[in-house]
């Protein structure tokens, strides 16, 4: 096997392939999904949808698929992970590719808006003004698709990875770059959400990209990073965000979810905890 890396969706994607498999198909897949689901590309289908004044519209099969997974993630996390926070993420300063994000002097003041949306087949129902953000979900969804189509053995998109190799072990890094834990993932997925990465300052306070829909602000949590093992990378990504937002109760919540195989969290004091289902290597 061999590995190749490339940039896509604002992160580094590392693809592990059988020796004879070319990587360009995975590159093309990531590029194609980015053209449709990115909120940083003005011409993307997602941005056209977000700008539209229509409440009901038909979307492409690919966008409908990603929205369906996002809807599943919203249901499984009790609404904690909801793409409808797109407007809030942008208002808090993350309205451009992360390398261009700058600090804000004041926190945003936004009127409460309706965030209900649904997708049925190719039809999207969404109140005007609700901006959808598919960032993490789309990344995981693409990694899932690449592996399910057997375009690659392992796809690691900025730490959100999907594998079909039975001996895959993931080393989870702490904020210092040291290995906090090693987890056996095997044929499955692992995703990590962190409040340390993609962070900036708003009114001289630490802000990050994981918005808590309950408060409309970056989640206040004692967890620095949460890693979730699940069957699919898109759901692992949603699970990791939910654990992070739930803070002290995150591990207990994850322990009760049958779709989550295991969780590792790095606490604010540097402690590392895992649920008992986690196969720590």
């Amino acid at each position, binding site marked *: 096997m061999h590995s190749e890396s490339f940039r896509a969706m604002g*992160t580094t994607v*590392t693809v*592990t392939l059988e020796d004879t498999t070319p990587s360009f198909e995975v590159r093309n897949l990531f590029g194609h999904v980015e053209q449709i689901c990115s909120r940083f590309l003005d011409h993307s289908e997602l941005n056209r949808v977000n700008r539209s004044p229509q409440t009901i519209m038909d979307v492409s099969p690919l966008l409908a698929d990603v929205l369906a997974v996002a809807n599943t993630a919203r249901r499984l996390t009790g609404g904690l992970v909801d793409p409808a926070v797109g407007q809030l993420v942008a208002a808090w300063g993350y309205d451009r590719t992360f390398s261009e994000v700058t600090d804000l002097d004041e926190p945003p003041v936004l009127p409460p808006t309706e965030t209900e949306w649904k997708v049925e087949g190719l039809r999207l129902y969404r109140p005007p003004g609700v901006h959808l953000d598919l960032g993490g979900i789309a*990344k995981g969804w693409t990694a899932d698709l690449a592996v399910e189509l057997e375009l690659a*053995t*392992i796809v*690691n998109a*900025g*730490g959100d*990875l999907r*594998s079909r*190799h*039975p*001996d*895959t*072990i*993931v*080393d*989870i*890094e702490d904020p210092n*770059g040291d290995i*906090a*834990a090693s987890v*056996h993932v095997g044929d499955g997925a*692992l*995703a*990590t*959400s*962190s409040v*340390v*990465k*993609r962070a900036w300052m708003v009114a001289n306070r630490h802000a990050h990209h994981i918005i808590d829909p309950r408060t409309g602000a970056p989640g*206040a*949590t*004692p967890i620095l*990073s949460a*890693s979730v093992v699940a069957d699919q990378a898109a759901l692992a990504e949603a699970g990791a965000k939910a654990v992070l937002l739930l*803070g*002290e*109760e995150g*591990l*207990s919540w994850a*322990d*009760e979810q049958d779709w989550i195989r295991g969780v*590792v969290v790095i*606490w*604010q*004091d*540097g*402690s*590392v*905890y*895992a*649920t*008992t*289902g*986690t*196969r*720590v*290597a």
Partner: protein
Amino acid sequence: MIRKRFLPLRGLKIVAWTVAAVAWVTAAIAGRAVAATATDTATPTGPTTTQTVDTTQQAAAPALPQNGLIVIRTGSTQTTQTQQQQQVVRKVVVQAPVRQAPAPVRQRSAGS
């Protein structure tokens, strides 16, 4: 004459001082009893003032899941003896053994 004139006054003084002394002793005893009662009832209110929760403080550790918790690493901050004992209690070692693969494929994840 003089003796006759001062005798009733001295008698009054004796009576007055006696009454004053009895009143003072009675008041002193009663006051001590009230103070003792007040101290008894005040005792439980002491710790209440120390239970004030600073809501700005973050949780020291995660809530314990029903199936237990694996403590992989403890942090660098100082912990009390009670906290250390809790961590030992929380350490669960009933996880399934990992199959030793001949060549595990290692990946890294640091979050996004």
